């Protein structure tokens, strides 16, 4: 990205690493990023503490109390099988967060590995990048749909399908960074000093990639949550026996005119969570690229 990370003032480098100092400053300058972080922590807490959030079994069917509108007893109402929508939405947070985090972690790690190798091995570069271009030309939701149509519906398969659709973008980013970094004077100096390639990658290239990779990972997380919801919504995602926000909305699809709350509550939760992730990502990006920060 830029060399400033490396030539930070020595006084600051003693206490905190310059990257983290910039993150800290960004949170001070961008209260919205802080709000995003707080919402995310709250959502994570809700997901982890789901059984103790005043919920009942999200799969428990009560035909006698079908389609009850929101009330003091059923905060978000009940669905066509009499299941408590509040409990289902609370448990649904688990699916969104697990898929978002897992896809972000997997695709950044995979993208990092492929990007580092292609950026350094010229012979592989052309081949791998053509494959990535091809993969990127398939709209990611369609690629995930095609993969899900060929596997059994499960959260694991959803994660794999979305990861495959997201990896090429990460590879692109890493490769472009590596191509810039390998020409930097300090890398050339390291080569001249006889440093081995693995050591150059770990000591000189990797530290400059971590920050943009984290930002990219945040955006991947938000986009993965939306893709999971889309897949579940059209019946190609999380299996129906696990409540996810997309599933709950899918079940409300035909009932929109009489039971709009079936769509509204999970929809608001999903939008809020993705918004929180994006705000966090924007804050981090601003922290890492002050030139871009003033404009975007």
């Amino acid at each position, binding site marked *: 990205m830029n060399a400033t990370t490396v030539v930070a003032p020595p006084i600051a480098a003693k206490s905190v690493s310059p990257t983290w100092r910039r993150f800290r400053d960004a949170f001070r300058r961008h209260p919205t990023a802080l709000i995003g972080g707080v919402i995310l922590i709250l959502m994570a807490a809700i997901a982890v503490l789901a059984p103790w959030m005043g919920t009942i079994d999200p799969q428990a069917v009560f035909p006698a109390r079908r389609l009850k509108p929101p009330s003091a007893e059923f905060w978000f109402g009940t669905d066509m099988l009499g299941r408590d929508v509040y409990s289902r939405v609370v448990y649904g947070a688990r699916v969104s967060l697990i898929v978002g985090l897992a896809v972000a972690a997997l695709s950044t790690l995979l993208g990092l590995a492929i990007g580092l190798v292609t950026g350094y091995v010229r012979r592989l570069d052309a081949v791998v990048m*053509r*494959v990535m*271009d*091809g*993969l990127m*030309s*398939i*709209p*990611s*939701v*369609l*690629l995930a*749909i*095609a*993969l*899900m*149509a*060929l*596997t*059994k519906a499960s959260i694991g398969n959803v994660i794999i399908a979305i990861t495959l659709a997201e990896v090429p973008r990460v590879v692109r980013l890493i490769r472009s960074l590596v191509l810039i970094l390998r020409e930097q004077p300090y890398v050339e100096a390291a080569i001249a000093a006889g440093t081995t390639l693995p050591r150059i990658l770990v000591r000189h290239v990797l530290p400059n990639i971590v920050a943009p990779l984290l930002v990219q990972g945040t955006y991947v997380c*938000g986009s993965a949550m*939306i893709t999971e*919801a*889309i897949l579940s*919504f*059209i*019946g*190609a995602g999380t299996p129906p026996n696990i409540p996810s926000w997309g599933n709950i*909305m899918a079940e409300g*699809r035909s009932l*929109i*005119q009489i039971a*709009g709350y079936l*769509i*509204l509550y999970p*929809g*608001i939760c*999903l*939008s809020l969570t*993705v*918004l929180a992730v*994006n*705000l966090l990502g*924007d804050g981090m990006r601003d922290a890492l690229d002050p030139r871009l920060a003033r*404009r*975007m």
Partner: protein
Amino acid sequence: MIGYIVRRLFSTVIVMAVVAFVVFSLLYLTPGDPAAIIAGDIATDEDIRRIHARLGLDDPFLVQFGRWVWSLAHGDLGTSIFTNLPVTQLIGQRIEPTVSLTLCTLVVSILVAVPLGVTAAAKAGGWLDRGVMAFSVLGFSVPVFVFAYILILTFSVELDWLPVQGYRTFHDGVWQWLRHLILPSVALGTVYVALITRMTRASMLDVLAQDYVRTAEAKGLAPEQVLIGHALKNAAIPVVTIIGVGVALLISGAIVTETVFALPGIGRLTVDAILRRDYPIIQGVTLIFSAVYVLVNLAVDLSYVLFDPRIRLT
């Protein structure tokens, strides 16, 4: 210029070849027997054998790929497992609503987003600018179907101004056709508008800081002339690029939007195919949509010639 065009055409051919290969090999990448998964849980061995034969899964991989490419070259995308009709015919029957929806959205989005981005950049830091930025963050966060349902609940269920669902063909009258497309287009276009506005604004801010803009202002040109004639023309390339890249959002979004508004388009065809595990349809749709995306971006790259004389002259 000719060199540039030839190079771009060549790389498009390669990308399309990779796309075709990826779409084809998905069937073999997934673990287990694809025929068994397509056949479903209650399938007999006979069903699975039938699908094996239908998809030609018993031949070597390269033979199958060769045969598939050969029929592709003849405009044959295979046969639907469920309806036994050619996939090209099924797609042809469903193409009108999808084209209506995406073209409407594309045109309206660009007409809204570019002026919005230009104005936001011209008055950077003002209330409009802040509003545009807030809108774009929201636009990226609210999924298209959530927004679609909010629109339906507001304008169809509560206010009863527009139809909840459904589609009228162009032949039923332009007004009816348009009425059924308003909400779907707004829902589908929001994230696209957010994307284009943000890029227009960023690109304009870059250009407005250039010396030649100051010169243009100094020689007394009207602000609009500077903004449109000098700044926008030079800011165009990133904007046109993002319009092309964003078409992927339109395609993915169209599948969801058609599901929400019950539009009988290619998106509905895909979703029905998922439920029936009719893989040849999914394969065909994926290939066609990817081809459209690649061709749109080829057109975008070729349009650089209009904006950048450096490409035109070399």
